[in-house]
């Protein structure tokens, strides 16, 4: 055994040997390493500390750079920690801080060793322990070692003290009660003359303030002093970051710091400080016009700098300033646009963001044009970023900035054709969404869809399949706007559709079905029109408000209706509106031809094309295409194809018959065929849309229905429902009704028992997924409200509208689009307000404690604050033992023994406490005079901080520390 140990020690490989061996090995890295690891496992168990330390060093190296797990060695690390030799300790601490985490079981064993090292006379040993603690401190460690940290915070050795300050962050984080002990000393370190110490202390406060700024407002005078006096850029940057957080909370504070910050901007030569000042101004002091102007001047200097880093940060600063001061961006428009073609992807991305920030309804078309051109030239990744940002900007707040939907829809079509376009899903979503929301744009949608469908080349690009399916659905759903349904049918049935995935192919078939029905119906109506106008007379009252009917029937019906009646029939769907928005001028209804400009030629040619021959050809064509599909492997395809096939089978025997002898045919037969067609047509021509919320309320709970209280299995149901997801809307009305049928019971059962949190989140999730099927909850009637209701946004939009109006007046000649009224965009889905995340308890604990310390609180035993004061008095004495004793007491108090110190006399602190309330009155009056922090800032500030401490109890009012 011993012999083995000797050999082991003598011939043990050091870390250097391992590294060199690794570079020279011929056996393969992993084999070499696993052999080395075996050695290490053996060596780590050795009783000789040298062997053990060498092994642990190697192990840490392998774990750190070759990612081997070293948790097995945790105990050996603890063993080595107790070595008296510095080099061993160093290795052990390094290993510990690398590999230990909160769940490491042996952590409980090292408390005493850490305590011993923290109190060591060797500052480097103390430093090792602190370094390790800053990485691994747990709640227990933080609690148990707080007294030692407290002592070290006043250490005379700067080397140790700055590390002690650094470790406080982790200790506070883990054990918030330590704030009561250490906070005073931490603040005192802020005020020492040693710049290294101040630097670390400010860093700690910066971290703390970032998490919870409010608690640190009382320290504003100290920070202000540093901001004005410090010459160290590192410190200034941190102080600026603190003020960036504090200023928005206290307007008077913002007023105070804005000048010093501007002064730094003017004076400093350091770019980092300059940028931090700029960032502070644009993010937190943006109400101060002159400061923002100064900052923007400096930003412009950064933008034209050769250094890409400065350019990038300058753009970033601009995008921060953009929401409040858009002029700053517009002033630098050229640079921003030029940056779109920068070599640096970061800069390109940032400038894209800025360009999007500039978008408004007056320039959206122009900017989109520029961007699409950039997209065509860019690499695929950036191209899609551009497209993505155009899409997301345009659809923001229900297409708020889009006035001319015809333009936007054709832009969507154009974007689909960009070679690198991978935004199929988003474009698909928007096409459908616009189709459902904006009735006036449907003719253009159908035209765009047709152009996409008819191009066989597009079918070869899988990224476009989603868009094509949307186009197919749109042209089926709104086929009445089609210029040439026959051509559409050809497009839908073209051979290359076999390239589509089955689900999308099914959408194509369904759309072909709709087109077919439409053609047959139009044909019958036309004939009926020619023979007698019986059908059309019947149809209009039958299906009031159906655009397709009226439109396909032609103008005769429209003409026969009185305008007011029509308006009553359907407000949102008044053909007159359509005419106006389309033609821009009122058109007479009385003429023979359909009057709508867009429709005039279409209807004319349609009438001509619906001949007996063309219809028969169409039927044959569809049958030919559909029959092979009934043997497909995909259920959806089979189902759709069968539907179509059966329908044709049903119609065909009657059709030719009745068509051929159309004059003398028996009325019954013809009626039979046309009845079927009419029924189908009615089914399809119902507008697809969401179900009103009140519709669900009207459904009473059936007698036998038992509502489940525990809705845990809801998740599985929802999982099932998600499957058809996006495509479900494409399957026609029948399918839609099925879906609604499924979702209603779920919805109800969720509503009834008073939804739990889980439940509402599931509901919200479902709502997000199937937003289509929901109506806004605030609206009770079945109508779709306008999406951008001016009344709702009256306040915010007032001046905006005014500006818009003037802009329109000014540029109306240049941009004729504006002359056209924005079509109605209906609201389909209520916007979900994200559920606010619960408060972070740990953070609350910390900030609560900090507030207690700074502002005081009556709930805390008075002794605590007096203890702290005592600590402060002792600062200069620096007697370790005494403060330790003192802290021991604090610990005891924390364990519930809160009265121990009450008996001890603390005349000084008590005196201060008593004095403070007396000062309360003066405090308020002196506010203005105290505006300037005095040179003896520390004590004054402390007193000022103390004063409200006693005044304020539960709800601390932010006092005027700086003012």
């Amino acid at each position: 055994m011993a012999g083995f140990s000797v050999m082991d020690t003598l011939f043990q490989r050091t870390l250097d040997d391992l590294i060199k061996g690794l570079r020279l090995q011929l056996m393969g890295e992993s084999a070499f390493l696993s052999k080395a690891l075996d050695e290490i496992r053996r060596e780590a168990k050795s009783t000789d500390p040298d062997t053990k330390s060498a092994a642990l060093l190697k192990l840490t190296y392998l774990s750190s750079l070759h990612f081997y797990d070293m948790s097995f060695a945790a105990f050996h690390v603890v063993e080595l920690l107790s070595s008296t030799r510095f080099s061993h300790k160093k290795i052990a601490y390094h290993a510990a801080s690398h590999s230990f985490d909160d769940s490491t079981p042996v952590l409980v064993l090292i408390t005493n060793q850490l305590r011993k090292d923290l109190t060591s006379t060797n500052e480097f040993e103390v430093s090792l322990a602190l370094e390790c603690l800053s990485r691994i401190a747990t709640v227990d460690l933080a609690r148990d070692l707080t007294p030692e940290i407290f002592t070290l915070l006043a250490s005379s050795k700067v080397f140790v003290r700055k590390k002690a300050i650094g470790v406080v962050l982790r200790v506070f984080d883990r054990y918030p009660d330590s704030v009561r002990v250490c906070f005073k000393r931490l603040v005192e370190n802020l005020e020492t003359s040693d710049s290294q110490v101040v630097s670390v202390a400010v860093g700690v406060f910066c971290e703390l303030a970032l998490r919870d700024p409010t608690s640190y407002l009382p320290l504003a005078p100290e920070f202000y002093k540093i901001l004005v006096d410090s010459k160290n850029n590192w410190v200034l940057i941190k102080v600026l970051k603190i003020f960036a957080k504090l200023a928005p909370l206290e307007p008077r504070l913002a007023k105070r710091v804005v000048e010093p910050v501007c002064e730094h901007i003017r004076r400093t030569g350091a770019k980092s400080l300059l940028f931090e000042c700029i960032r502070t101004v644009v993010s937190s002091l943006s109400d101060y016009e002159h400061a923002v102007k100064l900052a923007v001047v400096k930003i412009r200097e950064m933008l034209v700098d050769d250094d890409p880093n400065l350019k990038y940060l300058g753009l970033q600063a601009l995008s921060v300033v953009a929401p409040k001061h858009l002029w700053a961006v517009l002033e630098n428009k050229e640079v921003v646009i030029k940056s779109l073609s920068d070599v640096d992807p970061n800069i390109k991305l940032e400038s894209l963001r800025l360009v999007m920030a500039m978008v408004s309804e007056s320039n959206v078309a122009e900017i989109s044009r520029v961007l699409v051109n950039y997209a065509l030239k860019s690499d695929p990744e950036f191209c899609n970023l551009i497209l993505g940002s155009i899409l997301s900007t345009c659809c923001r707040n229900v297409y708020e900035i889009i006035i001319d939907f015809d333009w936007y829809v054709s832009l969507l079509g154009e974007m689909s054709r960009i070679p690198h376009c991978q935004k199929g899903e988003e474009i698909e979503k928007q096409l459908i969404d616009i189709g459902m929301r904006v009735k006036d744009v449907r003719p253009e949608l159908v035209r765009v869809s047709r152009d996409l469908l008819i191009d066989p080349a597009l079918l070869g690009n899988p990224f476009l399949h989603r868009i094509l399916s949307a186009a197919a659905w749109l042209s089926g759903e709104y086929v009445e706007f089609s210029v040439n349904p026959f051509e559409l049918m050809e497009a839908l049935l073209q051979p290359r559709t076999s390239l589509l995935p089955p689900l999308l192919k099914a959408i194509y078939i369904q759309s072909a079905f709709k087109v077919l029905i439409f053609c047959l119906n139009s044909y019958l109506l036309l004939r009926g029109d020619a023979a007698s106008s019986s059908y059309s007379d019947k149809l209009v009252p039958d299906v009031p408000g159906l655009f397709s009917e009226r439109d396909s029937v032609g103008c005769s019906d429209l003409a026969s209706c009185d305008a007011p009646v029509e308006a009553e029939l359907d407000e949102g769907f008044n053909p007159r509106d359509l005419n106006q928005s389309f033609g821009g001028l009122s058109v007479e209804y009385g003429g023979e031809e359909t009057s709508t400009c867009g429709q005039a030629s279409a209807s004319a040619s349609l009438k001509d094309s619906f001949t007996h021959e063309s219809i028969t050809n169409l039927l044959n064509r569809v049958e030919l295409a559909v029959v092979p599909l009934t043997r497909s492997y995909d259920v959806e395809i089979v189902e759709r194809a069968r539907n179509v096939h059966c329908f044709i089978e049903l119609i065909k025997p009657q059709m030719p018959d009745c068509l051929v002898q159309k004059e003398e045919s028996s009325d019954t037969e013809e009626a039979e065929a046309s009845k079927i067609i009419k029924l189908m047509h009615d089914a399809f021509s119902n507008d697809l849309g969401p179900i009103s919320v009140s519709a669900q309320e009207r459904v009473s709970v059936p007698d036998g229905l038992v509502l489940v209280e525990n809705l845990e299995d809801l998740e599985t149901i929802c999982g099932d429902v998600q499957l058809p997801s996006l495509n479900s809307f494409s399957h026609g009305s029948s399918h839609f009704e099925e879906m609604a049928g499924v979702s209603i019971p779920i919805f109800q059962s969720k509503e009834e028992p008073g939804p739990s949190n889980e439940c509402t989140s599931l509901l919200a999730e479902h709502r997000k997924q199937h937003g289509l099927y929901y109506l806004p909850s605030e609206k009770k009637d079945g109508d779709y409200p306008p999406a951008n209701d001016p009344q709702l946004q009256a306040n915010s939009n007032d001046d905006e509208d005014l500006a818009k109006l003037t802009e329109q007046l000014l540029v109306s000649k240049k941009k004729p689009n504006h002359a056209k009224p924005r079509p109605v965009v209906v609201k389909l889905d209520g916007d979900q307000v994200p559920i606010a995340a619960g408060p972070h308890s740990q953070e609350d604990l910390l900030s609560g404690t900090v507030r207690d310390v700074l502002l005081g609180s009556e709930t805390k035993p008075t002794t605590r604050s007096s203890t702290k004061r005592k600590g402060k008095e002792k600062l200069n004495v620096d007697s370790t033992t005494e403060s330790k004793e003192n802290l021991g007491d604090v610990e005891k108090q924390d364990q519930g023994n809160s009265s121990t110190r009450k008996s001890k006399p603390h005349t000084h602190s008590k005196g201060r406490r008593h004095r403070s309330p007396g000062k309360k009155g003066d405090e308020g009056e002196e506010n203005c005079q105290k505006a300037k922090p005095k040179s003896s800032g520390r004590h004054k500030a402390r007193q000022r901080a103390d004063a409200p401490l006693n005044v304020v109890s539960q709800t601390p009012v932010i006092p005027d520390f700086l003012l």
Partner: protein
Amino acid sequence: MIRAVMVINTQGKPRLAKFYEFQPVEKQQELIRSVYGVLSSRAENVSNFLDAESIFGPDTRLVYKHFATLYFVFVFDSSENELAMLDLIQVFVETLDKCFKNVCELDVVLNYSKLHTVLDEIIFGGQVLETSSTEVLKAVEEISKLETASNAISLVPKSVSSWRSRWYTV
């Protein structure tokens, strides 16, 4: 605070990795790989920033500097200034340069412990501790002295006492 410091060579081999918040080793490897993946696709003479949020989560930033065959990478959050972090990389590299007299990748490879000693004097628990390379160097030299001293003292007694004790146990 600073979340992580990495030194990766141009082949993607990590030469130094320090995470100031505990990460399991597998996660560390994954993070370093993703960072290298993005780094290696960057051209020369572009800005020194990288989109860190896709790798490290929200509120993270990343700056890097490319020296010869090594990338020096600092990951941090909004409480640090980007340009200051670039300077801190400079401080780190400068200190290494003074330490090793014209530092190269091999020095970094062979001096694992020293590298960490240097870094620990610059960054402490994710906080910037010291920004003067002279000060850092002073501390590092002290520590190295102490280390060798503690080894030297032990060398004599160890070779005698421990050997003897073992012989007697045979």
